[in-house]
């Protein structure tokens, strides 16, 4: 193997390749183009993925939301069509009997889509969604606290009537520059002190404007102030990172059904939205997209490699005489073969690297151009390929260089030296 590291070997290879610059460049271009396409496609796929997943940014994707519907089967003497509500006790029951759950947050809600005006401050009024929440909700539905603080357990335990309002609520109810923290707003006739403001990141499928029109108050204060008693409107349930909520949710439903005298096979009694399932679908989409990128990229690369193989065959044909001379001077078939192979691999790797560099350059330019643009509302962000992909591409290049050289190298030594010398 010391041939591989000998200066002479590389001298020979460089000399042979540089004896016809134009042809070498044209040959190299095929592979350069192939790897360029591969990298760009993968990066574009990644950019799209980053852009779409940005919508899930920070959100606990391993979550589901569940709410009570009407029982669709009679059970234990109770009729079908019966309405029921989750109770606050359900939360502890779920927490205790279902393992691997990270958060179980009960929620109550006032207002809603096109709700009537329910919030008053001085002369200004507005219709907003008001939620009674536990502090964990900020980890399930992330938001940036722009001033003040979010709800904490001290608020929950002492039923404090405090509120965190959205940026749009602030612009709706306050004059610009007016101090918000410490002021009071009246929700359905009950005064709450504003202790913080938030700005939500855009949500997938959600209206970014609507998302800022929410008010969060402690769950306990909400129940008390708006007469909910033990009732729970809906719950946000998040599983631990190791396990998926999609697998755990039936256990959660079983507990709810048992506690509310619902037929165990009544699947319509508990409504739910499984974020993890949605997320998995999107993940599946990008897996498919990645596959397409690899497929197309590798095919283009393959055509480049066939190009190299083709040119090497011509080169070998042209150099039949030279090969004959070399063999007359004492080159062994292996020396001839390894020279052709090394030439092919060398050409492939160099042009492949150039392709990678070229593609990275383009990506750098794109990133530079996107740097000053707010990408949060775009479906495209930070196109990139990871180093692993580049390493894989390089391995593909070495192997393909080897394959590309194999046939020509074999051709080169099949000709008998005496015939090779006779060629004019």
């Amino acid at each position, binding site marked *: 193997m010391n041939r591989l590291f000998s200066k*002479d070997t590389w001298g020979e290879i460089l000399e042979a390749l540089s004896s016809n610059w134009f042809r070498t460049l044209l040959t190299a271009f095929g592979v350069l183009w192939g790897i360029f396409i591969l990298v760009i496609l993968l990066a574009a796929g990644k950019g799209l993925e980053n852009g779409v997943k940005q919508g899930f940014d920070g959100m606990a994707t391993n979550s589901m939301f569940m709410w009570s519907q009407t029982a669709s089967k009679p059970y234990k003497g109770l009729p079908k069509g019966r309405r029921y509500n989750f109770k606050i006790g359900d939360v502890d029951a779920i927490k205790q009997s279902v393992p691997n759950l990270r958060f179980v947050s009960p929620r109550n809600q006032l207002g809603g889509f096109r709700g009537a005006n329910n919030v008053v401050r001085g002369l200004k009024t507005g219709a907003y969604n008001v939620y009674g929440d536990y502090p964990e909700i900020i980890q399930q539905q992330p938001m940036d606290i722009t001033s003040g603080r979010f709800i904490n357990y001290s608020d929950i335990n002492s039923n404090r009537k405090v509120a965190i309002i959205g940026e749009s609520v602030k612009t709706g109810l306050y004059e610009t520059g007016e101090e918000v923290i410490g002021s009071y707003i009246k929700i359905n006739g009950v005064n709450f002190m504003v202790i913080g403001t938030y700005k939500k990141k855009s949500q997938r499928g959600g209206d970014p404007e609507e998302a800022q029109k929410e008010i969060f108050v402690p769950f306990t204060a909400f129940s008390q102030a708006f007469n909910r008693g033990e009732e729970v409107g809906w719950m946000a349930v998040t599983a631990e990172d190791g396990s998926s909520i999609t697998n755990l949710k039936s256990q959660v439903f079983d507990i709810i059904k048992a506690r509310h005298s619902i037929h165990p096979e009544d699947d319509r009694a508990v409504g739910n939205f499984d974020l993890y399932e949605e997320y998995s679908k999107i993940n599946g989409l990008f897996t498919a997209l990645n596959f397409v990128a690899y497929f197309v990229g590798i095919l283009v690369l393959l055509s480049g490699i066939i190009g190299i193989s083709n040119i090497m065959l011509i080169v070998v044909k042209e150099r039949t005489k030279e090969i004959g*001379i070399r063999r*007359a*001077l004492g*080159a062994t078939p292996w*020396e001839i073969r390894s020279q052709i192979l090394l030439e092919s691999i060398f050409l492939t790797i160099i042009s492949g690297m150039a392709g990678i560099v070229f593609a990275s350059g383009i990506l750098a330019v794109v990133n530079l151009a996107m740097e000053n643009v707010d990408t949060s509302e775009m479906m495209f962000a930070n196109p990139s390929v990871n180093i692993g992909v580049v390493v894989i591409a390089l391995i593909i290049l070495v192997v393909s260089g080897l394959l590309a050289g194999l046939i020509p190298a074999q051709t080169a030594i099949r000709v008998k030296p*005496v*015939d090779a*010398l006779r060629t*004019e």
Partner: protein
Amino acid sequence: MGSNSLHVLKGIDFTVAEGEMVSIMGSSGSGKSTLLNILGMLDEADSGSYTLDNTIIKNLNEKVAARYRNKFLGFIFQSFNLINYKTAVDNVAMPLYYQGVKRNIRMEKAMHYLEKVGLADWAEHHPNELSGGQKQRVAIARALASDPKVLLADEPTGALDSKTSYEVMELIQGINDEGKTILIVTHEDDIAHMTKRIVNLKDGIIIDDSVVTQVRAKSALHV
């Protein structure tokens, strides 16, 4: 290359002693080039034996043949067969490269042989910048570079005018004077008479094998 074989040589039996300078003559198709190719291990005889320097050359695989060619033989061709993209000195150094000689030693030796053929000043020139005679001298230097036992020359003057031919022959004679065994295939009478022994081939057999008085190329040049 076809499937029907043609027997070119039909029983050749001759010995060349060390230090001899033999020319092989014959009309075209007499088998002289084939004989030289077999001697040069570029081709193999269907039957018979070939002993070179007490080594029986038989059933060689390509690798061993390559090693033998490198060690025992130096080739001089009618069409020079230099590698066009290499300089004169690199061409001369080629056999040494395949011997695995280190680059600086290789270059030193190659320069030594180029000096010997009087082309030291042309070392960095490519073959296409050299005249025919110069090219053949580079080829001779290359053949000598690996210090072989035997020089095999296939029509070494075939592509040269007579003045240049004589100059080349003078060089070859000088090499022979130093004790190297040389076989020359030629169909030119005057070239043949510059060797010490002429073997005449016809239709694949030796019809005449005689020692001649060598005509020195130097004297022929000044006639």
